């Protein structure tokens, strides 16, 4: 190690602080030290081929991140001191943050746990270091997201108990089960699921809507978090691509295994992002772009180029890509209609889009909105104007794999429910799609133990038999505070008070029709 140079080159520093910190074991076998490296069937012949495109070392990481966070927290402080929440476009926007905090922030924590675990499992020092740094990134992200949104918790409902809700609330089992599935997989599947399929292929569809959405709606706290996280995300995405190329280049036997994982995790990610589609099209008072446009740019174009690039390794685009492409016309409307009717059981509010917003949807979705979805919303609007706001008082059938209610329609027939079922060892299981049904068939043991919120309520495991008791006691959702219609809600009234508007009770939420 003796050297006369005062400063090491980046390359040398990376070498010393990552690869050179590893050693060849002498009295334990490598297999005993890294027992999870082989069982998935992935063959690694030379770990030294692992390239970290950023060559980031821990000392540089700490310095860089500390500077970023100092600036970030200064802006959070300024935002709070200036009552930044009063400058957002409309209080309806805060509902997107509620969805983000309960649905996405806990996934950052799940990613932290996941990378911490798999970082222990690779015998290559480069991969271990990369996982360690990403784990710390993810932990920082969950913390900074919580801090970015904590100011809103002082002024709006529904943000008070997100970690508790993430483990219990019916729709949050969608993101939770996604990450539990990845974290309970082997280390290489985890990397394919999270680093590649999620971070590389789909993350723009999560981050762009929320962060641009924040910018368009005057939420400087969340925008600033987004900028701060962006350099980390860029690193994660680059790493995601490196990971997949590394695995594919190591051995040709890896190709079919990875192809299967790409098929699976593309579809799981796509189903998870259906929540984002609704956020983009319905929850942002100032729209960034439609879900359809976002899907075309970030998946069809970017993803198309990516899979063209991976062709030379023998990888084809994800199996159910065409179904996903067709779904871009429908899923946001179907999701919002679902949350509208089950708003008694959510920690955020829902509403009928305004006339102007419906016209925007007609323009963005000329082939579907007026034909299939506008009549539904206008019918509900008419009921609401009569004081009979619609709530669905039954519980929905959930897909055994993605755990979204079985609400999607057939790719080629938007008037027909997409439903699949099969029997496995004498039990019947139901699915929303061929994509989810395939995932089940491949590993049925994994999904027969799914914790399906509706069945758990019916088994008596959720502190009550009726929706109101489950919602208040088990979910910690404040009935009449956090849930139901937006119009006339405490959030709405508070916003009107902030803006000096007179409350309009004409379309107020009247939960008399609710369970």
């Amino acid at each position, binding site marked *: 190690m003796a050297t006369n140079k005062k400063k090491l080159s980046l390359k040398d520093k990376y070498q010393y602080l990552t690869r050179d910190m590893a050693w060849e074991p002498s009295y334990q076998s490598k297999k005993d030290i890294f027992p999870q490296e082989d069982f998935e069937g992935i063959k690694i012949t030379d770990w030294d081929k692992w390239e970290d495109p950023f060559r980031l070392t821990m000392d540089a990481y700490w310095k860089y991140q500390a500077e970023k966070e100092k600036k970030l927290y200064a802006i959070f402080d300024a935002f709070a001191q200036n009552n930044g929440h009063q400058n957002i476009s409309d209080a309806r926007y805060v509902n997107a943050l509620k969805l983000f905090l309960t649905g996405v922030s806990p996934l950052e924590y799940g990613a932290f746990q996941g990378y911490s675990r798999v970082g222990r499992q690779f015998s290559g020092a480069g991969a271990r270091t990369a996982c360690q740094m990403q784990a710390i990134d993810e932990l920082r992200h969950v913390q900074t997201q919580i801090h970015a949104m904590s100011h809103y918790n002082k002024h709006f409902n529904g943000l008070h108990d997100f970690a508790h809700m993430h483990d219990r609330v019916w729709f949050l089992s969608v993101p939770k089960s996604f990450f539990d599935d990845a974290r309970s997989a082997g280390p290489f599947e985890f990397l394919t699921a999270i680093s590649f399929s999620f971070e590389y292929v789909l993350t723009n569809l999560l981050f762009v809507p929320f962060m641009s959405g924040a910018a368009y709606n005057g939420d400087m706290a969340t925008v600033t978090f987004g900028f701060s996280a962006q350099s980390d995300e860029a690193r994660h995405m680059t790493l995601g691509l490196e990971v997949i190329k590394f695995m594919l280049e190591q051995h040709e036997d890896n190709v079919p295994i990875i192809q299967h994982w790409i098929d699976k995790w593309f579809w799981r990610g796509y189903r998870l992002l259906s929540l984002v589609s609704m956020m983009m099209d319905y929850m942002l008072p100032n729209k960034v772009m439609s879900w359809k446009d976002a899907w075309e740019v970030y998946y069809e174009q970017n993803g198309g180029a990516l899979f063209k690039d991976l062709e030379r390794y023998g990888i084809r685009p994800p199996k159910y890509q065409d179904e996903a492409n067709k779904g871009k016309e429908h899923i946001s409307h179907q999701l919002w209609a679902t949350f509208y009717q089950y708003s008694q059981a959510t920690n955020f509010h829902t509403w009928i889009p305004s006339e102007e917003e419906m016209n925007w949807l007609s323009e963005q979705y000329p082939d579907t909105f007026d034909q299939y979805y506008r009549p*539904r919303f206008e019918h509900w609007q008419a009921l609401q104007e009569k004081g009979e706001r619609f709530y*669905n008082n039954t519980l929905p059938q959930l897909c055994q794999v993605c755990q979204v209610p079985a609400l999607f329609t057939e790719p080629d027939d938007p008037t027909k429910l997409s*439903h699949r079922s099969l029997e496995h060892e004498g039990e019947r299981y139901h699915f929303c799609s061929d994509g989810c049904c395939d995932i089940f068939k491949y590993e049925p043991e994994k999904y*027969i133990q799914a914790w399906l919120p509706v069945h758990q309520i019916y088994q008596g495991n959720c502190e009550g038999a009726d929706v109101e008791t489950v919602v208040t006691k088990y979910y910690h959702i404040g009935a009449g505070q956090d849930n139901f219609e937006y119009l006339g809600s405490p959030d709405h009234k508070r916003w009107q008070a902030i803006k000096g508007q007179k409350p309009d009770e004409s379309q107020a939420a009247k939960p008399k029709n609710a369970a």
Partner: protein
Amino acid sequence: MSVKAISDYITQPKDTVANFNGMQVVYVHWAKHLMYCSPFAFLVSPDMTLAGFFAEVLRPAIKDHPDSTRVDFMEAQWLLNGQGFSPTPEAALLAQGIDHKSMLTLNTPGLNGINGCAS
């Protein structure tokens, strides 16, 4: 296929009928009425008659749909788990094959949802 795991992977299904305290789950989907976003999941006694199920469970569930008053459950076309099915109103659910996690599909020709758009 089955799970590749680092040790024996033994799991139990979480939703067997034994876990429902004598009750069972029955799903109902009303075709072309997607205003109800997904099939209903009901918790019912397997000994309930189909007539009782229609009157006490299904009828209240669909009452908010403008087409609901025109539905005659006995005249409708039914599928049970994807197969043609003729309901026997006086018989119990289980006795006519409507077992745990069965799915009934209700087809009501002529009724095509709000504005005929399958909503």
